[in-house]
C-alpha cells in the first residue's frame, strides 16, 4: 500500500484522465438516454482510509442505490454507480415512465430497469477505458442493491483489505441540468491493476 502514497502528482493526473474518459462517456450515454445535458465534475483521485470512502456518499449508514459491476480482464477492479433512492426514482420516471413515488422500495421491474441503466453506463465507462488503455476490460452482469453505503462499498474494498487500510478510488460526480438526477461513479481498480494501467499508457513505473 505504501507504494500508492508515493504516486506522484503526475500519476494521479493520469488516473484522473482515466476517470475523465470513462465517466465522460458514461455521462454522454446518460445524456442520450435522458435526452438532456448531463454535467460532470472533474474526477477526484484519492487514496482514502476505508472509513472515509462511505463519507463521500453521505456516511456509512446513508441508504443508497448502488449498481455494482466487477471488472474482469487485464486490469480487474470494482465499479459502482451510486444514486440516492430519490434520484433513482426520478431516473426511472423519466426513462421508463414509472411513477416516481418514493416509498423507499423498488419493485422487480424497477430493479431490472435500474440494472440495465447501470449496465449501459458502466459499459460505456469501461469500453472507453479499454480503448484508451488498450487493456481488455469487461464487466460482469450488474448487481443491484439498496442499502447502507458502508455495507455496499466495503464489498469493493476487499481486494485492498489484504494490503492496508486505504483504497485508491477514482470518483466522478455527474448531475443533470436541474439536479434531479445526481450520481457518482466509483472505480476502484484492484491494487495490482495500477501497474498495468500505467504501463499500457506508457507511464514509467519504476521511478516513483
Amino acid at each position: 500500500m505504501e507504494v500508492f502514497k508515493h504516486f506522484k502528482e503526475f500519476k494521479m493526473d493520469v488516473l484522473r484522465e482515466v476517470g475523465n474518459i470513462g465517466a465522460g462517456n458514461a455521462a454522454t450515454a446518460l445524456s442520450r438516454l435522458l435526452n438532456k445535458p448531463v454535467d460532470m465534475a472533474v474526477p477526484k483521485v484519492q487514496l482514502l482510509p476505508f472509513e472515509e470512502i462511505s463519507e463521500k456518499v453521505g456516511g456509512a449508514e446513508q441508504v443508497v442505490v448502488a449498481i455494482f459491476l466487477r471488472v474482469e480482464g487485464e486490469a480487474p477492479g470494482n465499479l459502482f454507480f451510486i444514486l440516492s433512492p430519490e434520484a433513482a426514482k426520478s431516473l426511472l420516471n423519466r426513462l421508463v415512465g414509472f411513477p416516481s413515488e418514493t416509498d423507499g422500495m423498488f419493485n422487480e421491474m424497477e430493479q431490472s430497469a435500474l440494472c440495465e441503466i447501470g449496465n449501459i453506463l458502466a459499459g460505456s465507462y469501461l469500453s472507453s477505458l479499454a480503448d484508451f488503455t488498450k487493456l481488455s476490460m469487461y464487466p460482469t452482469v450488474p448487481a443491484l442493491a439498496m442499502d447502507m453505503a458502508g455495507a455496499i462499498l466495503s464489498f469493493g474494498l476487499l481486494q485492498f483489505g489484504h494490503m492496508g487500510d486505504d483504497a485508491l478510488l477514482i470518483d466522478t460526480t455527474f448531475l443533470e441540468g436541474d439536479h434531479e438526477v445526481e450520481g457518482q461513479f466509483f472505480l476502484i481498480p484492484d491494487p495490482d491493476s495500477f501497474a498495468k494501467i500505467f504501463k499500457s499508457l506508457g507511464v514509467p513505473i519504476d521511478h516513483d
Partner: protein
Amino acid sequence: MIEEQSVVKVGMADLNVIQHSGIIRTVGLGSCVGLTMYDPQIKLAGMAHVMLPSSDIAREGQLNIAKYADTALPALLERLLELGASPLRIVAKMAGGSQMFTFAGSGDTMRIGPRNVESCKAKLAELRIRLIAEDTGGNYGRTIEMDASTGILHIRSVQTGVKEM
C-alpha cells in the same frame, strides 16, 4: 436534565471497549462481521468490526490485527481480560457476514461474508468463548450497537428494521 449517553464508535477493521454505561456501535456492516464480547458482572462490552477471515493472506507491512477474524478475536479478548473480565463469564454475539451481491459463478471473494462468519465461529471455539446469539447472513447491511449496562445488542437494517438480541 437528560444525561447524554456516551457512544464509542468502532470503525471498519477496528475494535474497542466500553464499560458500565453507554453504547458501543459500528455502522454499515455488509460482508464484515461485528462481534461483541460481554462480561455481565463488570458490565464490560467489547466490539470488533472484522473485515476478512484470515491474516494468512495479508500483504500489508504493519498488520492491522483488528481486520482479520483470526487476530481480532484474541486481541479483543485480551483487552477484556486486561480490564478484569473473566473468560468464564464472557459471552459473544455476532452480526453481519452478509452477501451483498450475488453473481452466477461467484468466486471466493463473493462468499467473503459467510467465510468471515465461519472463521469467527472457529476462533471463538478455539478461545472457548460462548456464542449466545447471532444474526448473520442474508443480503443486507446492518448497524449494530450494544448497551454496556445491559449487554443487549440492537441490530438495525434498512429492510427488516430493528431487532434485539
